[in-house]
């Protein structure tokens, strides 16, 4: 089902935890849907110098959180904002189709944390245009039973 890379990040996720007095904190998802991602950013001079996450969610949610933190660590805010869910998924050697929305969650978590930073500091970023931190991401309906 999952690539080795997904499983590796799932079993050994990078950057798990919280940042005290983070410059930006974002939370997306909904426990009712079985997934919440919370992301903490430490930002200095427009650079993401530290990032941590906590995730309640499936294997793919955890792996994409982990991968996303790795991909934005040390990057500028604009670079971080240009991170797409597809890029995260690709970096994990792909995700099953029904699990693509978990990567959307990761993209949104990053954006949401930056949004929080922008709000607090009264900043504007092109990459946040049209972004609504309260918007729900899509879920596919699938079920299995035996």
């Amino acid at each position, binding site marked *: 089902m999952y690539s080795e890379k997904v499983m590796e990040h799932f079993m050994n*996720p990078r950057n798990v935890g919280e940042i005290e007095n983070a410059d930006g904190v974002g*939370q997306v998802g909904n426990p009712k849907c*079985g997934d919440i991602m919370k992301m903490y950013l430490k930002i200095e001079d427009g650079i993401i110098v530290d990032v941590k996450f906590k995730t*309640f*969610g*499936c294997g793919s949610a955890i792996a994409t959180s982990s991968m996303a933190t790795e991909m934005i660590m040390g990057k500028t805010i604009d670079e971080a904002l240009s991170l797409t869910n597809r890029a995260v998924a690709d970096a994990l050697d792909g995700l099953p189709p029904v699990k693509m929305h978990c990567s959307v969650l990761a993209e949104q978590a990053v954006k949401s944390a930056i949004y929080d930073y922008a709000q607090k500091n009264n900043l504007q970023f092109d990459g946040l245009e049209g972004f609504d931190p309260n918007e729900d991401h899509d879920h596919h*309906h699938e*079920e299995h039973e*035996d």
Partner: protein
Amino acid sequence: MKKRVYLDYSATTPMKQEVLNAMLPHFNVQFGNPSSIHCFGRENKAVIDQARQIIAKTINASADEVFFTGGGSESDNWAIKGVVSALKGKGKHIITSKIEHHAVLHTCEFLEKEGFEVTFVDVDEFGIVDLNQLQRSIRPDTILITIMYANNEIGTIQPIKEIGELAKKHNITFHVDAVQAYGNVRIDVQELKIDLLSLSAHKVYGPKGIGLLYIKKGTKIIQLIHGGAQEKRRRAGTENVPAIVGFGKAAELAYQDLEGHVKHLTFLRDKLINGLLEKIPYSRLNGHPTKRLPGNANISIEYIEGEALLLSLDMVGIACSSGSACTSGSLDPSHVLMAIGLSHEVAHGSLRFTIGDFTSEEDVDYVLKELPIIVERLRQMSPLYEK
């Protein structure tokens, strides 16, 4: 090889060696079509009649009341669609429960689109059907009550006898999905006043792709699969001889020492349940403490999502299943867990371990050792968990 502990017997079971041995000759030696009148056919006719006899006996039916199908889902579809088609002149109301298997639930939902009306009766916190509500739901145009014998997720066993008597009293056809109950409880269709009963062989160490529908003599029902004259013209298709033989053998084995089987499973189940509840804080048992399948242990573990648990268990070789929708990318967690009143979050973090005849105490101990470690690791990652 890596340690592998299979605790998903409700999903499917490995075939017992005796079952395979019984089937083997029928693949390429004694392979004839039982409907053929030559020797190759006749020798298999006798063989399937014998299997039919054995299975019929295990549910106290007569052999001419049991019909082989392609599995439990087909049996459920046939029972429900077949009865309402036959009785649509009489009424259009169906009663079922909120915790049925999808083979029943989705069939009923489909029939709603076709103009039938369905009442989905509630269950209590243990998953037991609300008998009062069921009784109140009965209308003059109710033509079918379909309630499962035991639930596949939480293992709760229903008061089938009471429902059977209610159905009988109101002259309503009564269907029971006993796919999970079969081989784990003694089922007497006459005593329980059941008109139709669905079974599936692969849940009782028999082959996949073979099921059965018991149809009490005189029950009005239309075929689901038209065609040849097999199964007394009620279910067309070349008889699946090896699978029928295997089902017969599995049925025989299941009921030759039911008490021993139940005892073995119950002991391991209770050890697992008690051990997990003790070792894992913020965990709870789902389903009824005693009115449950002997092999079913369904527990909720708060602050974690089920698929993550499943994957982590899989990494250490433990196979079980979860009530989380995330296992398949769906929004909604198990309809069964919701029906017993779990919150979405808790339902998402549920695990079903199902124990079977090949499970050892060592297997249970292994889970008791590994799962608490996994839970702790995942909780550390969870934004919902505050130590």
